[in-house]
């Protein structure tokens, strides 16, 4: 019996899987997206993730019945017009991911962070896509938030990417051309930045020689960052010369009230749609963290975070449902907008996979199992409730793998996936 263990463990594929996605697999470097040619007749494939900091109440989200003839749950009842564009998934989570709010870091990476303090995060789904497919657009990806400084988006070495949380700033970044003098100044700044990177990169090398082997590993990370930044600066120099796309829209007015999550989500969603439509980027994530304040909704007078710790208190559950209904409906409006937008081949929604999920399956007790999951668009066959075991969860990374494959990427695993997702077909 022991020898079977050994054989299995020496299997090459398993070894690769164990070492995580951060390893560059040889067939990935050769991989080309099907739509990268200069004469694109087929619309590009995109991915958008909405991530929630405080979960959604499972009892209000998941329908009782599985399959395609489920009766809509409370939160899905307003989504019946786009029912055939949405899949609701229950009984899934990231294997081994724990830590309550801390698992926010793992929403898109599926990486168990552990408590030993030794674990590091790995690349998030959106950044994985951006890394391999992102160079076709001005912005490889957009990392956004409705407020605050955290995002669930991580680079390969586990660094969080700070989000943009002002729609007006995002709009300017995407669509407002800088003045000629500003462009010149910008170019000069980039050029100087590049020369600094060059200099300190060399300094890191010489410092590595002065220090021991352990420090050299650490400095190697720094050195890689320097090279990456240089590369990005070169890219941005290139794009700086081209004009930004024209859009028939005014710059949005930012919602200043940090508690008005729904209005913030809506304003950001509008700019996101424009970004996709103009092919400014193909990969977007919008994080909606659990703010502490009271949402300006009728019938709600207790702070959102506080509501999430409902402790089965009737009043809190009622108010929480009001907040979460508004969040889900705002997400659905985004889907409707994409559905109504025609492009080269089909509708925008057909070419854009949109995910809504959260690290918390139960915010009241900080449980990371039974994550709320809604998937829409992207050419998947939707209109069903994929119900998995709520006691013994099915791995959510399998869905991430399916989404990657749907983008045309030849990959056979992502994080702790065990295969493509059962029941989810393109």
């Amino acid at each position, binding site marked *: 019996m*022991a020898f079977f*263990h*050994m054989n299995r*463990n*020496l299997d090459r594929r398993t070894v690769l899987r164990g*070492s995580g996605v951060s390893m560059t697999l040889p067939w990935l470097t050769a991989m080309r997206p099907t739509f990268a040619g200069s004469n694109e007749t087929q619309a590009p494939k995109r991915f958008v993730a909405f991530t929630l900091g405080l979960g959604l109440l499972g009892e209000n989200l998941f329908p009782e019945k599985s399959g395609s003839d489920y009766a809509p749950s409370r939160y899905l009842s307003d989504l019946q017009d786009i029912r055939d564009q949405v899949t609701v998934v229950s009984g899934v989570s990231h294997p081994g991911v724990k830590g309550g709010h801390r698992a926010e*870091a793992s929403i898109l990476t599926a990486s168990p962070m552990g*408590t*030993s*303090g*030794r674990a*590091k995060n790995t690349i998030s789904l959106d950044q994985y896509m951006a890394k391999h497919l992102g160079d076709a657009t001005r912005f490889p990806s957009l990392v956004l938030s409705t407020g605050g*400084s*955290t995002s669930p988006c991580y*680079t390969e*070495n*586990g*660094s*969080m*990417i*700070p989000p943009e949380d002002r729609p007006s700033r995002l709009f300017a970044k995407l669509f407002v051309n800088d003045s000629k003098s500003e462009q010149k100044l910008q170019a000069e700044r980039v050029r100087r*930045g590049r020369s*600094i*990177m060059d*200099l*300190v990169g*060399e*300094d*890191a090398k*010489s*410092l590595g020689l002065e220090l*021991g*082997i*352990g*420090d050299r*590993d*650490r400095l190697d*990370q*720094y050195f890689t*960052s*320097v090279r*990456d*930044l240089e590369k*990005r600066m070169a890219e941005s120099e290139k794009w700086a010369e081209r004009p930004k796309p024209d859009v028939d829209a005014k710059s949005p007015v930012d919602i*200043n*009230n*940090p508690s008005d999550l729904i209005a913030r989500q809506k304003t950001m969603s509008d700019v996101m749609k424009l970004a996709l439509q103009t092919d400014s980027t193909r990969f977007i994530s919008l994080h909606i963290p659990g703010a502490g304040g009271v949402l300006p909704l009728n019938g709600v007078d*207790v*702070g959102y*975070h*506080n509501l999430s*710790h409902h*402790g*089965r*208190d009737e009043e809190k559950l009622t108010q929480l449902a009001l907040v979460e209904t508004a969040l889900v409906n705002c997400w659905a409006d985004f889907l409707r907008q994409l559905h109504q937008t025609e492009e080269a081949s089909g509708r925008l929604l057909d070419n854009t996979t949109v995910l809504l999920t959260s690290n918390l399956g*139960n915010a*009241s007790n*900080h*449980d990371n*199992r039974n994550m709320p999951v809604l998937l829409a668009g992207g050419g998947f066959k939707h209109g069903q409730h994929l119900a998995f075991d709520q006691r013994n969860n099915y791995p959510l990374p399998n869905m991430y793998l399916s989404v990657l494959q749907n983008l045309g990427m030849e990959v056979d695993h992502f994080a702790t996936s065990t295969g493509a997702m059962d029941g989810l077909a393109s």
Partner: protein
Amino acid sequence: MPNFFRTCLVVIALSLGSFTWAEDAVTQFRPSNVNQFLQNYCIDCHEGDDGEGGFDLLKLTDELADARTMDRWVRILDRVHDGEMPPPEDFDVDKEEAAAFVGSTNTWLVEAQQQLHAKRGRVQSRRLTNEQLERTLHDLLAIDLPLASLMPEEQRTDAFANIADAQSMSHFHLETHLTVVDAALDAAFDRADQGSETWQRKYTARDLARRNPRQRCRDPEMLDGKAVVWNGGVIYYGRITSTTMRESGWYRVTFDASSLKPPDGRGVWCSVRSGRCTSGAPLLTWIGSFEAGTEATQHTFEAWIPAGHMLEIRPADATLKKARFRGGQVGAGEGGPQNVPGLALHSMSIERIHPGGNVELVRQHLFGDLEQKRSKRGTLSVARNQPRDAFVDQVRAFASRAFRRPVSDEILAPYLELVQQSLEQGAEPADALRRSYRAILCSPRFLYLVEPRSDSTPRWAADRENWSLDDFAIASRLSYLLWGSMPDDELFRLAGEGALQNPSVLAAQVERMLGADRGKRFLKDFSAQWLDLVDIDFTEPDRRLHNNFDVVVQNSMLNETHQFLASLLDENANIRTLVDADYTFLNSRLAKYYGIDGVDGDALQRVSLPVNSNRGGLLAQGAILKVTANGTNTSPVLRGIWVSERILGVPIPPPPESVPAVEPDIRGAKTIRDQLQKHLADSSCAVCHRKIDPPGFALENFDAAGRWREKYPGFRSKKDKTVGTIDPSYTMADGRAFGNFAEFRSLVAEDPRPIAKNFVEKLMVFGTGAPVDIADREVIDAIVEQAADDDYGMRSLLHAVVTSPTFLSK
């Protein structure tokens, strides 16, 4: 089958060796008696994917260079050592056999860890944390603007943000770092351009009050020659439009204030905050609080106030009666008749200050001895025609301070070349320097704490394989531990003389540094992470459940804990006092909140507590009770883990995958005690919950906002008054029983050694940026043992850490 395994364990261990650490591979395999023991007692339960507790012995390798494998082994060692494994109810383990296992395993693991230290050092280049980076730039350039808010948020691992192994670096970090560096250099060079500027404005009461007395608004109203704000709930009521700042900066705000219609025998507690005070930007920044009495008294606050912010000063005491106002605005004369307490401002003065240093100091840091010329307009600039050497000297001086050690010509060359190039291209000398500084501040020598091996091996390290640090690395370790910033001139001087290897010099420096102004940072910085106080704002207690809680209370709590820790350090108090002190620090507001009589005034003062008091000691302080709860309810599990890990030094591993989390249920069906009782029946749960639950239950009498309670909220029954009554009694893991929090506290304080050990470990992590590992145990145990001579004094423990071989080695 068992005999077959004996050899297989080793074979498999070999074949599954980690790939990434090959160069570090530790050559020894587990000693044979270790394998024998595992064979006899462990393999039956811990085999295969469904092994108990998710632990498969067959997957455990001998690759101790792999941190996770090492952790596993250490945990096995500790559990056998503590008698938790093999489960005593299932096995009668031969004591000698177990002792032999523990001995061999320990030697094997310690030696392997020491080998790793010898090869790589105990800690590798750690990056400055956000706070350290901010302060270092402040000290380097004599500036004082907030910079940490520009930096990407950093994660804390095992409480600390400075763990080198957990820090990450990416192009995003570097990109934002460039932005931070530019903001810092902008501030410094702009300041150097200015003359010695001052700004001050004086305000009469009329200046502070609303301009138009007929307009309903939120500014104070004029009443009997004073600017008056009544106690009310309207947001921004008490804002003072005339104090809107034109420039961001540090300001000293001084004003005279008195109370109106004060509650019986008390003053009126008020808050001072700043903000834009418009509905579009509702956030207010905390500045401070004070208690206004019937006689006018003067209050002074210093704060960073961003441009566009104004002051808001108002009564802020949740226990006081509030006036009601229509439509979110306040008309003059509407508050008075409602008979609520109020605040009267008599006059104010606001003055721009520069805590970072004066203009001369900024210029000294930027331009040193370079010749400067005064233009006709009076501005200073660096003269162009100076010998090249003058520029070389200045760049070298700046780089040495930035890199925290002398800089060789070779290292300096590229940074010098930048200056040279810029000057040749006709740049202003100041701009040329600036370009070079920008590069210097992006160098890894600035961003990371560089700790090369010392050339000389001091006496105490002769028998160790560890790397001893050179003087400049020691200077940095000291200054980042105690000040959270770069070394000052004296530390640099001593390092240059090679004096920091001398323990008595080190000890004197610790005293000097703690005594300096910035020495006050040490306990605040350390406790912010060690005790999670950095999270004090994370939750806002549910108003319906905690109606007496307010921001003044929260800040008083934080100050209480800070002052308490400072008193322990100042008095070199026995570390057990941390838990069982018979005093604390209160002002009138916090005393009222805690239900303690006889404390007057807004200054925190030392208050002796009666023998039967529920307060006293860290665990009964509001700030600790708040950060260990979620704002609404408390969890004995979360608090129990917190006390175990942060105070008692007992690490608690996460629960096995298969266990569902306990869902808080406040409807009254079941108490948390009923729910947790189940754990004791299951041995794999009980092993940790025996340690977690006692402190957890002992603290149940404190609610999520730190108040004492006898009953759980939501439990009400007219028939049976005992329903929902909190039962804090429990039995410690070692079998000693306690009936309430006070008894629990006494039991914990009986033995100061675990508390001392934990304190030393946490200091060691905070001071070196690496978790404590098995090879550090010997040093830590020795420190604790020697501390007995000094009655386990907190200050003595700090000294012992700083002069320990672990702190002074890489």
